[in-house]
């Protein structure tokens, strides 16, 4: 039973003991164990992508009235493996005039930026890479590295389309970071902690933060979609405008890395959403069996990921001015208001002197109420701003074809005939 409660810790201890038994210094053995752990974590992240790709393609197929991949493996589940083999055998083409080092570094950075988030994701109360006390800030910092990969790719390819993609990526990723950080502040304020595991802990003791602040959850969801660069925000690779943008000059496995990076980032964002707003590993009986937490987290992440995929399938691509307007004129003010209101309520709660039994309910109620009021006000403002106006009259309306009046009944000459 003890093994099932803390498998990672026990395996780690066993490995460290094994290596110190071989005569290694304890500190060195610890470093090797941690390296192995990081490797296993990264590989499991990459293996997960194999299945998220199949899931996405299946859903795509269903919505477009096709079957989707259905030949290889049961229900086509293994379709990605032949695709991988195909992409392994393709030729690498480095365009003339490409800047070699940044060109080859870019795909690695784009996958690495997504994988590094996994270091702070708590899969269960005792299964996590590390629990640094500024975890949320770390997530933001790592997001910047992914953006850097895209910019490097666009610039180093020596291609105008790629450069346009990179410039779009800068404006999109950097500006959508602002509402994302604002939305991330809300769980930090609510949990009074910046460590990701502490936030999940705080949620398992009260309720999911989605219930406390749905507005923040929605802002985070939307802005992280833009951060990943998936439809409807896939302006950086818009096929029909700039022929897939920053990745246009990549082939073979290097393109594959960008592909993997995008899918991995999308799933990582879903897992983050599940962790920060939907309670992460918390769930029934998780105190007795911590391993259940992995199951809960995966269920929640896949549920969020399903919505991500449906959004990608259903929504058309935004124009670049629409995207930036939406960010700076809508998401950022909304995020600022949400953060301020959350802080005010959190500060005002202890002043009310409510008994301990009712205080949590009052807190949840107040937060939810304020969030609903924010949503309502936003809806009213939006309705006023974007109300359907009658088109202005620029001239006389076009004459409508009117049937000519029926000819007057002519007296039939026959009647006059005597």
């Amino acid at each position, binding site marked *: 039973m003890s093994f099932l409660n803390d498998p990672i810790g026990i395996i780690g201890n066993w490995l460290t003991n094994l290596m110190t038994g071989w005569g290694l210094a304890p500190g060195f053995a610890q470093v090797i164990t941690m390296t192995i752990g990081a490797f296993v974590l990264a590989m499991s992240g990459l293996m997960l992508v194999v299945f998220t790709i199949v899931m996405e393609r299946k859903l795509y197929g269903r919505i477009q009235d096709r079957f989707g991949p259905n030949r290889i493996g049961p229900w086509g589940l293994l379709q990605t493996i032949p695709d991988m083999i195909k992409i392994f055998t393709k030729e690498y083409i480095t365009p003339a005039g490409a*800047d070699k080092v*940044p060109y080859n570094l870019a795909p690695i950075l784009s996958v690495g930026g997504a994988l590094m988030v996994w270091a702070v994701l708590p899969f269960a109360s005792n299964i996590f890479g590390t629990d*640094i*006390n*500024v975890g949320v*800030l*770390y997530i*933001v*910092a790592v*997001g*910047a*590295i992914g*953006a*850097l990969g895209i*910019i*490097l790719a666009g*610039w180093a390819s020596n291609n105008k389309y790629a*450069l346009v993609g*990179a*410039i779009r990526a*800068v404006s999109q990723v*950097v500006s959508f*970071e602002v509402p994302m950080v604002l939305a991330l502040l809300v769980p930090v304020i609510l949990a009074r902690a*910046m460590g990701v595991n502490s936030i999940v802990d705080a949620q398992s003791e009260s309720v999911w933060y989605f219930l406390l602040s749905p507005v923040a959850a929605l802002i985070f969801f939307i802005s992280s979609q833009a951060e990943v660069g998936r439809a409807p925000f896939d302006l950086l690779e818009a096929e029909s405008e700039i022929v897939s943008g920053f990745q246009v000059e990549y082939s073979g496995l290097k393109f594959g890395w960008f592909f993997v990076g995008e899918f991995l980032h999308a799933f990582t964002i879903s897992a983050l959403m599940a962790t920060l707003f939907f309670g992460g590993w918390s769930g029934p009986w998780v105190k007795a069996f911590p391993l259940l937490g992995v199951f809960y987290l995966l269920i929640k992440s896949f549920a969020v990921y399903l919505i991500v995929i449906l959004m990608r399938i259903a929504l058309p691509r935004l124009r670049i001015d629409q995207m930036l307007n939406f960010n700076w004129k809508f998401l950022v003010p909304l995020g600022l208001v949400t953060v301020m209101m959350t802080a005010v309520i959190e500060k005002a709660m202890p002043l009310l002197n409510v008994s301990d039994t009712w205080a949590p309910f009052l807190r949840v109620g107040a937060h939810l109420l304020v969030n609903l009021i924010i949503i309502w006000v936003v809806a009213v403002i939006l309705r006023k701003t974007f109300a359907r106006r009658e088109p202005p009259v620029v001239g006389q309306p076009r004459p409508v074809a009117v049937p000519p009046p029926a000819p007057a009944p002519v007296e039939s000459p026959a009647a006059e005939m005597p």
Partner: protein
Amino acid sequence: MGAMQILFLLAAAAVLGAAILVVTSRNLVHAALWLIVALFGVAVVYVLLNAGFFAIVQVVIYIGAIAILFIFAVMLTRQIGGKDGGSQNHSTWWVAALLSLLLMVGIVWILSTWQGFATELPALANEKELISELGKSLVSTYLLPFELASVLLVAALIGAIYVSWEKSR
């Protein structure tokens, strides 16, 4: 030589090497990329100084925003007509080098006469509480500088928007 010292020397060498490339590279985008390497190395130095928070803030602000802005600005102001080639430094760069070297020697000389130059690392009282202490002091003791910094940032935001505003006709 402990592991910390080796780590510091590696990070310092990486930062200084990258910094030299930042100020001498002919291609400005390369200079910006080397700037990222240098800033990342400075973040490692912060970690060695038990300031993990500053290391992450360094990555967020410098690499996530400032370095990317630099790359963006270089891309936006690239000369099409081939003026990019050639040295990006003045022909009298050796005067600047001499001045910098003299300043370096002077700083080190003055520092070496200071009795606290070789202070050994004191133990930290409570390592876990550092960030909350910092946060609390920012909204109590250092409230005025903190607010001034926010006003400065807002002013910079508005100023940057105004300066780069392209007036339509």
